[in-house]
């Protein structure tokens, strides 16, 4: 039998690894970006919205692997957003092992909301 304590410490490891990985990718992309475009004058006063390749997960991954610095940062942000999603997915499994059907159901609701936001929002 797995205790709640154990589950919580696994969740903590999962969250910490996710954040560290995301931060490392963001930092790497940031350094590359500043090396290439550091002298560009930024303008964030007017909201224009990001281009499609910075908005859609599939395109972000493709652009990042082709070495575009801004997309590498965006990939890091995507990993960061996925970290709590992974935590919730892990909780579904943990509650299933504990045979807690009610909480498997509740956790699936939360997971659905998160995936809806990410994929269909």
């Amino acid at each position, binding site marked *: 039998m797995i205790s709640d304590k154990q589950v919580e410490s696994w969740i903590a490891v999962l969250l910490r690894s996710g954040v560290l990985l995301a931060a490392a990718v963001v930092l790497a*992309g940031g350094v590359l970006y500043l090396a290439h475009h550091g002298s560009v004058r930024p303008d964030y006063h007017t909201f224009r919205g990001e281009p499609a390749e910075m908005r859609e997960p599939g395109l972000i991954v493709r652009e990042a692997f082709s070495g575009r610095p801004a997309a590498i940062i965006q990939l890091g942000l995507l990993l960061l957003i996925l970290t709590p999603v992974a935590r919730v997915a892990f909780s579904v499994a943990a509650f299933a092992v504990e045979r807690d059907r009610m909480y498997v159901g509740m956790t699936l609701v939360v997971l659905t909301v998160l995936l809806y936001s990410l994929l269909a929002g």
Partner: protein
Amino acid sequence: MAFARDWCNLCCAAGRVSFGLGAGPRLAAESYDWPLTTMDTTVFTGILFVGSVVAGFLGALTGLGGGVVVVPLLTLAMGVNMHYAIGASLVSVIATSSGAAAAYVREGFSNIRIGMFLEIATTLGALLGAYLATRLPTSTIGIVFGIVLIFSAYFSSREPKAADAGQSIDPLAHKLKLEGSYPTGQGEESYRARRVPLGFGMMFGAGTLSGLLGIGSGALKVLAMDQAMALPFKVSTTTSNFMIGVTAAASAGIYLSRGFLDPVLAMPVMLGVLAGSLLGAKVLVRAKSRSIRIVFSLVVVALAIEMIYNSIKGRL
């Protein structure tokens, strides 16, 4: 020209509540020009990083979170559009919540069942909030932000007091297993949630504000748990921290698909707030200063008034 004049007014305004983050406005005042056209991305990123470290540090020290300082920093001092600002702030909220979780879990206070049950409310609220953020004018978002800042400052500066224990036990709490025990000086103490529907409703509101404003809304989450549901304060704060990341992730997907998340802007903010908050959490263990809380609360109230004023004037 009107642009420059407006910015000058803004500088004076920002200067009144200056707490060391005023490099942007001062630079602008000298050249009488929009600051973003006078500095390149490297300088801009550097200033944002330092400001975000300070924001994350103060946010952790006071329990308000980094977002409440980051959004005013970006919009009031750096002239960043509200939509980009709440996008960058929300990303830093996810990082802070997830990064701090490990420390909280070790203490054994957070309750994963209560957290997961209430996350149904906060994530649905976050979806609503994020949709509202894409539709409401930035001035409306600014005014709501200011009002929420004032309430957050008030609730975080008061002494934690035990909730009204006279409330009868909610039978729903037993059915939903919203109970547990936590370590105290006199051994394990058990607790059970009260007023579950009220707490659930407040959590929906907390999620909505999180999605609308790009903040963690930890103050409202704690209020829902320790006052409405009469859970122990330590259980409330640690479970709230656990919930903040999941709540923020629910609006982050919508922010991403609507183009609120600018990588170059989010990079220094996320890294800075994360570093600052981890630092703040370390200091917090050693020194629990009430005077810092009060000073910071006053700064937050001043920022809130600035936000509301500039929103009404149509500058945000």
